[in-house]
């Protein structure tokens, strides 16, 4: 039995089904991300786990305990809100101490535990400061310390890094992971940022339209997406409609806009499918080109070049590492090649599994 289990969890707002029979498990001590675009139901799911939103149907079990009917204040979860939701009229130490006071922890022990929590997030020197005098990153740490000090069974993070600027966000990603490991707390994070989810999590649950699209380790979600949605939402991907001509465990043949291409293995039967290939898996080659096309756009990203190449099968995004020399320019004709296993076959969206 997993530590946190969601079983066919459903939430309807009138005629709208925000969360549709979501089921997944979170193992003790692991870091799981609930990833999806806005409106996919991830925040509603978090609210239901936290106890702020009623469950329409389905079951949430935490450490063998059914959470149905347990009010939010008795669930004992640590929550970090997107806005941090700090108590602005209290100092850092008072903010962190609040949850312990509510639990009736005696003053002396409270002091020790607050100090330990602030030490964990490296904020001991700011314990007497008010939140309004602190930076976004510092407030974030206060929010984390406040959530962790009560030693929650489960830590819920609601878009914890989205209010930070890009550089700080990267720093806090590493910090967040360190703090989570040190505290050893089971963590569920809600985010729309796929890079954040991939970087932080042990497992990623991809949601779309209230349904689980895929649940896997970050590497597997990226490498073997189950649906066209996952493929395009996580990382960049060229997704094209095609027809599966034949296929078996060793590989397959697809036809796309009249061009026959060799693709990876698939369990699917012949018929309409989608093919997907990541921009960084396409090589620009002089010999042995699978496709040729004309560069129609070129963007310099610093460490990489992003090319758009018009080919017989459609426009393809191609990502080239910046090796210190100039790339093919707009209007140039280039040859493109890729390994057949990198051209993945996905069920066409109507027949999504």
């Amino acid at each position, binding site marked *: 039995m997993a530590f946190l289990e969601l079983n066919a969890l459903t939430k309807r707002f009138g005629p709208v089904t925000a969360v549709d029979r979501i089921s997944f498990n979170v193992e003790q001590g692991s870091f799981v991300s609930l990833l999806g675009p806005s409106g996919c139901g991830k925040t509603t799911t978090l609210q239901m786990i936290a*106890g702020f939103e009623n469950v329409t149907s389905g079951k949430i079990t935490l450490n063998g305990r059914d959470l149905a009917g347990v009010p939010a204040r008795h669930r004992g979860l640590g929550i970090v809100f997107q806005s941090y939701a700090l108590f*602005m009229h209290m100092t850092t130490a008072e903010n962190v101490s609040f949850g312990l006071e509510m639990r009736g922890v005696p003053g002396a022990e409270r002091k020790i535990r607050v100090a330990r929590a602030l030490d964990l997030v490296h904020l001991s020197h700011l314990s007497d400061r008010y939140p309004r005098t602190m930076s976004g990153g510092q407030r974030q740490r206060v929010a984390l310390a406040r959530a962790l000090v009560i030693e929650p069974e489960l830590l819920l993070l609601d878009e914890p890094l989205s209010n930070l600027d890009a550089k700080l966000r990267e720093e806090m990603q590493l910090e967040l992971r360190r703090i989570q490991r040190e505290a050893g707390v089971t963590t569920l994070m809600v985010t729309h940022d796929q890079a954040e989810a991939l970087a932080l999590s042990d497992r990623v649950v991809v949601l779309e339209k209230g349904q689980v699209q895929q649940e896997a380790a970050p590497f597997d979600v990226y490498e073997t997406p189950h649906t066209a949605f996952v493929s395009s939402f996580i990382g960049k991907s060229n997704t094209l409609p095609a027809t599966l001509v034949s296929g078996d465990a060793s590989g397959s043949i697809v036809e796309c806009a009249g061009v026959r291409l060799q693709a990876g293995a698939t369990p699917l039967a012949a018929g309409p499918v989608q093919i997907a290939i990541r921009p960084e898996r396409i090589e620009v080659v002089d010999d042995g080109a699978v496709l040729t096309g004309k560069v129609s756009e070129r963007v310099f990203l610093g460490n990489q070049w992003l090319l758009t190449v018009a080919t017989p099968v459609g426009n393809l995004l191609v990502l080239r590492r910046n090796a210190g020399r100039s790339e093919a320019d707009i209007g140039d004709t280039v040859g493109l090649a890729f390994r057949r296993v990198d051209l993945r076959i996905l069920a066409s969206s109507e027949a999504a599994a």
Partner: protein
Amino acid sequence: MRRNGPFAIGFMALFALFMLAPIIVVLGVSVTPTGYLEFPPSGLSLRWFRAILDNPDFIDAAINSLKLGVVSATLATLVAVPAAMAIDRRRFHGREALLAFFMSPLMVPTVVLGIAFLRFLTLIGFNGTFSGLAVCHAIIVTPFVLRLVLASLSGLDRAVEKAAVALGASDWTVFRRITMPSILSGIIGGWVLAFITSFDEVTVTIFIVNPSTTTLPVRLFSHIAQTTDPLVASVSAVAILFTVAVMLLVDRIYGLDRLLIGEGAK
């Protein structure tokens, strides 16, 4: 920082003068040695301040006004805070109507209110009593408190309350420890505004006071109706000085910026 040009400074000086002029005139008139209203004063005399002591009904009226202001502002706050919480948080039928109802004393002409209160208080036998007066004033000043409390509630991040709940706080604890301190500047600001409004209310009050419960503005009004001596100026001057003293005290204890602008200023 951008500096203000001469035009802006001139304009602001003019504006400040416009705001301060009546106060300066009143203070000037109050120190006149003559027996009539005179500005600028021909000399310096505390004669009309001594005259206040010879007119204890002014002092009684001032005490009445203070008591009335405190009681009605407090009553209004006790009603307006829960009302504001309900209107801000709950989605119920008649929510808009309830808000309009609470705000209605602002819309109804005060003369009409005065006549209505007079009729009503006479009917239930409370006319001229302090409690009747206090309730009427509370009704008049409630909209001011409600507006300010609603404004500070709408600026409050609801996640803050959720965070407290998640940490184990009961509804009452959340209100006492989190919500109330967060909207305190709105509550105090509303109370002060209510007190001031009650303190210088004339139109309604004049209908429903009797000589024993008369308020300072009404007493001044009836004094002017009979005679025009600088006594009204000296009484007003005392009121102004009292206000300034209170403001200084509040600033010392709590900080005016914090009270008027909110938590952020310190």
